């Protein structure tokens, strides 16, 4: 399995984590996963909504202490 890229966007305010995720997805290959770490409370709803809208795939959300790890697979 390919190594998952981790983006640490903790401390960034909306829409910083989403923008960092999108920039990483642009450079990723189809099928690759990106894990974005976000302490912005809106990200756990905003990022899945964006993923659904543009046609990528949500792998999961892991709620940690003070932040969330949001994992997205590039689908197209």
């Amino acid at each position: 399995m390919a190594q998952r890229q981790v983006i640490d966007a903790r401390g960034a305010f909306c829409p910083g984590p989403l923008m960092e995720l999108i920039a990483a997805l642009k450079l990723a290959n189809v099928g690759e996963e990106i894990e974005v770490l976000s302490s912005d409370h809106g990200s756990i709803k905003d990022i899945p909504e964006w993923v659904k809208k543009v046609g990528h795939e949500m792998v999961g959300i892991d709620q940690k202490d003070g932040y969330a790890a949001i994992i997205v697979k590039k689908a197209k």
Partner: protein
Amino acid sequence: MSAEPLFIVLCSPEHEKVQMAAMLASVAAVSDRPVHLFVSMNALLVFRNGISANERYQGGAMSKLMREKKAPDPITMLKQGKMLGQLTVNACSMALDVTGLGLDDLEAEVFDGQLGLTKYLADAEAGELLFI
């Protein structure tokens, strides 16, 4: 199918409103929704190049907090929206004429050009128009 284009007219120079306009424009643009931002009146002065952040971003309590906590910079967000999505930014021709500013006097890599209100309004018939 593409989403309905979003047309945003930004006239206010208030930091909070400039921030919201940049958030709306950049997030919509990266969400497969074409966005056309039209910057006029005092808002144009916010985008002058060579001015300090203190001079550029003036507002109320939220402005102070956003700067203290390093919320994303509106100009950076607009550049991201242009790079990662479908965002065009035009300066109002009238505001440029009145201020004597040219596109070269505005922040680089933000503006695509200048436009008159008549053309912008005609284009905006194809989508949703917001005024800030």
